[in-house]
């Protein structure tokens, strides 16, 4: 595709979106609606060719797909894949009002799968390992047995920080008395976390804008 044409399209679309910063306007509306249409179809096409064809059609009808799916030649059909095919089709009944209730079967499959999939995964990675990583000594000594003040302080901050944070999330007890103080300290820890994450992220956002400005710069460069 012509490079200059690409630069012009790129710049035009960029400016249309940026115009939203001033106020809503027809250019933004056009870009927004174009984006919705193109992106929905794009992801659908990529999903179809990269996943549905090799992993479903290629498994169910290998001979039919031999031209498109590598390694499909001579393979016998794998009928287990009728299961996802049926659930997938059930999902589409949502488009027909009379049969829409059948799509609940597919939803049940997905929701049940989500629950079964996530429960052990979060238990392992986000509960057990996170608790374990917090079981650290509150004092740190160097090789010759002297106390390292800085490292020890950091460890105390981590352990107490996690505990205070957890106390903030207690729902079934009133946060008053000692628990109230601990929970308040927990909010402070969370606020440091939020502040840190916010400050850290500003950088990411600026780099995105830098990327866009460079693209606009390339377009301006092609004009002058």
């Amino acid at each position: 595709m012509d490079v200059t044409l690409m630069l012009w399209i790129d710049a035009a679309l960029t400016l249309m979106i940026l115009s939203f910063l001033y106020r809503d306007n027809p250019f933004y509306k056009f870009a927004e609606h174009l984006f919705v249409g193109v992106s929905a179809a794009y992801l659908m096409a990529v999903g179809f060719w990269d996943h549905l064809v090799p992993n479903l059609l290629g498994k169910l009808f290998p001979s039919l797909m031999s031209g498109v799916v590598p390694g499909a030649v001579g393979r016998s059909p794998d009928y287990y894949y009728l299961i996802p095919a049926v659930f997938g089709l059930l999902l589409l009944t949502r488009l027909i009002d009379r049969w829409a209730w059948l799509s609940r079967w597919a939803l049940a499959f997905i929701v049940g799968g989500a629950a079964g999939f996530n429960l052990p995964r979060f238990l392992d990675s986000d509960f057990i390992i996170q608790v374990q990583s917090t079981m650290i000594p509150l004092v740190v000594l160097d090789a010759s047995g002297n106390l390292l003040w800085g490292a020890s302080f950091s460890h105390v901050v981590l352990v107490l920080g996690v505990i205070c944070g957890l106390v903030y999330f207690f729902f079934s007890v009133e946060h008053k008395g000692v628990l109230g103080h601990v929970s308040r300290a927990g909010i402070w820890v969370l606020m440091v976390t939020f502040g840190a994450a916010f400050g850290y992220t500003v950088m990411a956002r600026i780099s995105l804008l830098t990327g866009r400005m460079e693209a606009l710069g390339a377009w301006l460069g092609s004009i002058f």
Partner: protein
Amino acid sequence: MRIPDSILHIDRRIIFLLIGAAVCIPLILKPRFQDSPTPIVQSIFDTVERLPPGSRVFLSFDYGPDTAPELDPMAKALVRHTMTRGHEVSFFTLFPEGVGQIKKITDSLLPLEFPEKAYGRDFVNLGYKAGLGGAINTMVVNFRTLVNADAEGTPLDALPITADVDEMVDYVIILSLTAGDPGLKEWIQFAGDIAGIPVMGGGTAVVAPELYPYYPQQLVGLMGGLKGASEYESALVDRYPAFRNAPMDATMRMGPQVVTHVLIVLLVLLGNLAYFLGRADRAGRTGQGTQAGRRP
């Protein structure tokens, strides 16, 4: 006391204009800021450096064009480094849009800077697989059920680089460039923790803080945002001076970063100054929120 009020309720569009200027002006003037790697970045560099040449590296581009300005510099630095070290790299993505990102590397950077490296021998594109975290799980359990050919449909057995790859554990390290879900977190949960393959990589500055808790036990190292990329670039240039003239995107883009950060800090200070000057005026009228940032 009207001045503080007008500063407090400044039109957002004035701030937008200032930010635009803070990004564009350094881009035109191109100031350079030197950087040095922090331990968490150095650890990735050292790992790549220590692996014996010819090691099988799995590089997952888990991002799309939207986060490319942050993650592309990391991708380029990692590709330059692994290729220089003579590792065999398999490109992969869990994002449908990631396919385009891999193409940028295989179609432009590699032929241009490493013309001697051959497709199928030194690197391969395994393409996109849907299924999010589940895809990683399937790969760990049975690699070949999900990945049986490269992105162009050539069977793995027909490519020298992948002929011996039967399981995920045939890779010595997993690198992921992460923009969100799925990404490093899922690689850690499904591959690192389960199959014991070391995981490391980079994330946008947004996901990086969330990944810190995994370091160093579950995560070898982490590049956080453009700063992380620029640190890696400086480590690369220090070790391989030949790259001194290569375009180092992250280092170049640090200019706008610095200026905008300072601008935002100044804006925040100005806002607080105006707030405190005007507070006496409003004390009787406004309630105080208990949650930070709640609007009066």
